[in-house]
C-alpha cells in the first residue's frame, strides 16, 4: 500500500496545472486550430482530470508531440483520436464512445424531455369556457375525500 502511494505521489507531482507553451510551426491556420481542438479533447492518462493541452506531465508532452507529428503527416482529427484510443483506450478522449452502455447518456435526457412534454400536453385538457369551468374549480360534495367529508360534517354539526 505504501509503495502504491509513493508511485501515485510521484505521478501526481509530475502534473502541474500550467503546461509549457510549445511554440510549434504549423503548416496552416487550420492545422493549428485542429491541434488545439485535439489537445483539448485528449485526456492526460497520468493526471487528475486534465487534457493534454493543460498538463506538464511527461506523457502529455509526448502525446502533444505525437499529435503534432500526425497532423504534419496529413492525418485527420478522427485519425489522431483513433490512434490514441487504440493505444490508451477510450479513457483518453473526452468524447465518450457510442456503445450500448453509453447510449444512456443520450437516451435518458431525451426520455426526460419527451415524457415531460407529454406530461404537459396530457395533463392540460382544454376545458370548456363558461359556467361549467367555474363549477369544476369549486369543490362539490361528490368530489371530497373522506377526511374532508368528516371535516365538513363536523363544521355543519357545529353550526346546528
Amino acid at each position: 500500500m505504501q509503495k502504491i502511494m509513493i508511485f501515485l505521489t510521484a505521478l501526481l507531482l509530475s502534473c502541474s496545472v500550467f503546461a509549457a507553451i510549445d511554440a510549434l510551426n504549423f503548416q496552416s491556420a487550420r492545422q493549428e486550430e485542429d491541434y488545439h481542438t485535439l489537445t483539448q479533447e485528449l485526456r492526460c492518462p497520468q493526471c487528475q482530470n486534465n487534457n493534454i493541452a493543460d498538463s506538464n506531465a511527461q506523457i502529455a508532452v509526448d502525446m502533444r508531440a505525437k499529435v503534432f507529428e500526425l497532423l504534419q503527416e496529413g492525418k485527420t482529427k478522427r485519425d489522431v483520436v483513433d490512434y490514441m484510443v487504440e493505444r490508451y483506450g477510450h479513457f483518453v478522449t473526452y468524447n465518450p464512445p457510442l456503445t450500448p452502455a453509453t447510449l444512456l447518456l443520450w437516451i435518458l435526457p431525451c426520455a426526460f424531455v419527451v415524457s415531460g412534454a407529454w406530461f404537459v400536453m396530457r395533463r392540460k385538457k382544454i376545458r370548456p369556457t363558461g359556467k361549467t369551468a367555474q363549477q369544476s374549480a369549486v369543490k362539490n360534495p361528490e368530489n371530497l375525500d373522506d377526511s374532508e367529508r368528516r371535516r365538513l360534517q363536523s363544521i355543519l354539526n357545529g353550526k346546528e
Partner: protein
Amino acid sequence: MNKKLFLPLIIFLGLVIAFVVQLQRNAQGDDPKALESALVGKPMPLRQMTDLFENKPLGSEIFQQGKPILVNVWATWCPTCYAEHQYLNELAKQNVTIIGINYKDQSDKAIKWLKNLNNPYQIVINDEKGALGLDLGVYGAPETFVLDGNGVIHYRYAGDVNEKVWTQTLKPLYDKLAGEN
C-alpha cells in the same frame, strides 16, 4: 399511496449502492486513476527496436518464446522502479523471463544502473524517445505486461511489482498461461 412518489428515493438508493461499492473498493487499495490496457488480446506492437547494450536491432520474435513472459517498463529517473528492482531480481532467479524496456532514459545511465543493481532482464530494449511506450499505452513507470507464449498481451499492471502484487495478481495469470502451453 402514490407509487410515483417513491421514484426519487429509488434512484437515490441506486446511486448510494454505486457509491458504497466504489468506496469499499477504494478502501481496499483500488486506485480510481488506474487504467486498464487497451492492448489486452493484441500482440506486442511492431516497431523498430534496438538492444540497450549492443545497439543491434531486435525483432518481434523475442516476445514469442513459447512460454509466458513479463515485459517491464522502467527508467533510472523513476524512484519506484528502484524500489521494485530487487523483487524483479528474485523473480528472474525463479526463472521468470523478464524483458525490460528502458523508457525515456539515457543508455549509459541505464547500463550503469543495471551493472550496479544486477540485471534481471533477458533482453533490454532501448526506448529512449518513448515511441514503443506510446504504442504500448504506457503512461508512467514502472509498468509490467504479462504476455503469453505467442507474444499476445494478457494484462498490464501499472505500479511496482512486489511480493503481494506478484502472488495475488500476476502469478495466477502467469501460471494459467504456462499451463495452456
